[in-house]
């Protein structure tokens, strides 16, 4: 461990440097957003926008957090929207992962007629973008009486081809010895899943949770369509309502401030998930 060249000082320095360049590029838009959230609107409109934070920061954030979004007629309070987003993101993330992990498990660890057909059926959901099938999906949801309900908001989004695919990839890499050992111990497939596979899948699950959470958090088109009750609005819809349509004015500084605040929960999720990113597998497990 200590002899590895990548752990030497130049190796570490190189790693840090690469990361910093990466952060500079990927985080540049975020920095711009932050600067914009500390300026006044006329300052943002005068080209070019300054690259250094301004002095309106306290005022802008105070306005967003305390006074809420504008007059309060168009959107519910910020905290309610954040709460709605949180629920939606959690339910979708947990739902998608649960449903996909057992599907992937079934496709990989068993042999049954229609196995590959089922896999492709699930996989094919990636191939038709939501914008295309949105009209008929709306009809189905209406027919089932799920309009303006939480179930209608989340159920259609629960199937996940991406998660199934990723987990299938991972399950295919697990050594046969593991399965044989479990069988010899007399463990059935469910025991094997719960006791052996699930802990091994930690890292993948952590990554998936982050992705699915963000996916749920950023849902825009579907909630807009399904929900008429303002009180179910998510924060992303709330931000969209801040952005003026057509020629109307937009308080870009407030939009940016709200956007950054809305990024905090997902950021927290990313941070928390780090614990599951266990470095390598403990040798005894392999």
């Amino acid at each position: 461990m200590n002899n590895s060249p990548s752990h030497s000082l130049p190796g570490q320095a190189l790693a840090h440097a690469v990361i910093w360049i990466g952060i500079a590029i990927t985080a540049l838009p975020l920095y711009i957003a932050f600067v914009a959230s500390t300026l006044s609107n006329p300052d943002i409109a005068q080209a070019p926008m300054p690259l250094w934070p301004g002095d309106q920061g306290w005022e802008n954030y105070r306005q967003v957090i305390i006074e809420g979004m504008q007059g309060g007629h168009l959107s519910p309070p910020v905290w309610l929207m954040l709460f709605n987003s949180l629920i939606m993101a959690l339910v979708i993330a947990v739902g998608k992962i649960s449903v996909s992990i057992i599907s992937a498990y079934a496709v990989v660890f068993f042999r049954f007629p229609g196995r590959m057909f089922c896999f492709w059926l699930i996989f094919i959901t990636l191939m038709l973008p939501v914008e295309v099938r949105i009209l008929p999906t709306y009809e189905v949801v209406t027919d089932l009486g799920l309009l303006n309900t939480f179930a209608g908001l989340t159920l259609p989004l629960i199937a996940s081809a991406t998660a199934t695919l990723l987990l299938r990839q991972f399950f295919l890499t697990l050594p046969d010895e593991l399965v044989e050992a479990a069988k010899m111990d007399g463990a059935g497939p469910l025991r094997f899943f719960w006791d052996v596979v699930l802990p091994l899948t930690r890292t993948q699950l952590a990554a998936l949770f982050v992705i699915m959470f963000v996916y749920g958090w950023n849902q825009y088109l579907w909630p807009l369509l399904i929900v008429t009750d303002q009180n179910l609005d998510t924060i992303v819809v709330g931000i969209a309502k801040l952005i003026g349509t057509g020629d109307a004015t937009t308080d870009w500084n407030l939009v940016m401030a709200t956007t950054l605040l809305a990024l905090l929960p997902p950021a927290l999720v990313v941070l928390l998930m780090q614990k599951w990113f266990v470095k390598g597998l403990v040798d005894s497990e392999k």
Partner: protein
Amino acid sequence: MALKKTLLAYTLAFAAATSAVVAHAQAPAAAQPRTEIQMWMGLTGVNGELLSRFGEDFNRSQNEYRVVVSFRGQYPEQRAAAMAAFRAGNPPHIMQMFDAGSGDMIQSRGAIIPVSQVFQRAGIAFNPADFIAPARGYYGLPNGELLSMPFNVSTAVLFYNRDAFTRAGLDPNRPPRTWPEMIAAAKQIRERNAAECGFTTTWLAWIMLEQFNARHNQQIGTLDNGRGGAASELTVNNALNQRMVQTLIDLQPTRAFSYGGRSNDAAAKFISGQCAMLLQSSGGLAAIQRDGRFALGTAQLPHWPDVQGAPFATTIGGASLWVFNAPNRTQQEMRGIAMFLDFLRSDRVMTEWARTTGFLPATYSSFRAMQQAGFFTQNPGRDVPILSLIEARQGQFTQGYRFGRWTEIRNIYYEEVERALQGRQTAAQALRNFERRGNAQLRAFERSVN
């Protein structure tokens, strides 16, 4: 460890979901059940706030109905939502649809109920002549009936930077009235380097195609600009339109004209001071006033003086309110719709709407009310757009148009003119291609509604 976390996550999610569902289910039950009226709109920000508040005001003023105003995305998304809802048998009661979408709404016979009929069936007095003539022409039938109710109305104007004018040696109190004057001013601004660019325009198709032809009372399409039916054809490939597009192309190299992108993007060039003049919707005033750092002037759109009778009135933009036809609408719901629409067109609401949002008063009575209250004297320049609609000369082709798929046809205009501005084709080719592709769209639309 992992398992515990998963279980914890599950429990959390389940508890949270349950509480959310419970909270929603406990939404205050009305003491006396009101009939719900759904209105979908495409406005956000200050405008959306105000329209939502109007809904709440209406709810407070009576006990029978509860209007729910909700934002359903920008106009295209909102329209898709309405289409989906209609197909599922459950469209909103009222929907706000933007100008370009009118043709699609009207030609689908059976999808909507003309607003005049809605008032008539509900027994509420309604005089279409109240609405300003350009709006009546746009959304009305030859017999005077209105198909939809004009609500947020705008038109195109010329904004200019007085300070830049002074720098260039131009008189800031005498903005250009004709295109030759406009071109000369732009060139002078560039020569004296009073600004990086002479003029730019937003909403290229709306201003350079629709407003431009109205200003000169020129036909855009056959069958009375499409009002006669879905069999109309475009007729814009003529000398006047070619001249206009060619002018834009010719002025580019010296940046007397600088293209700023589709929709509203070019406004940023004017607000930041880069361009000295801006052709823009009247609704763009608030942004300019808030963020611009120069003295502002407003004028009517320029015209070509050699066109007989010009300048004519400009046309309207914005949106109107449509009533959907649904099989399960009750008489009571229809009455509620009429009452709310009546509320919205009242002078009190209209004047507050016009004052706050920068949209124009859509009725003559609200315009006069604002005049009498001294609004226009206190806010010079705010009367320019409304006057360019009602005081300028009306003509056969200043009443707007009615084509299906117009949003896409506007896109085609953007594409073809942009290609010409890129230098990849001439103005004549651009207009020819536009006509060809636009007519293909019109034919496809015609087939779909027959």
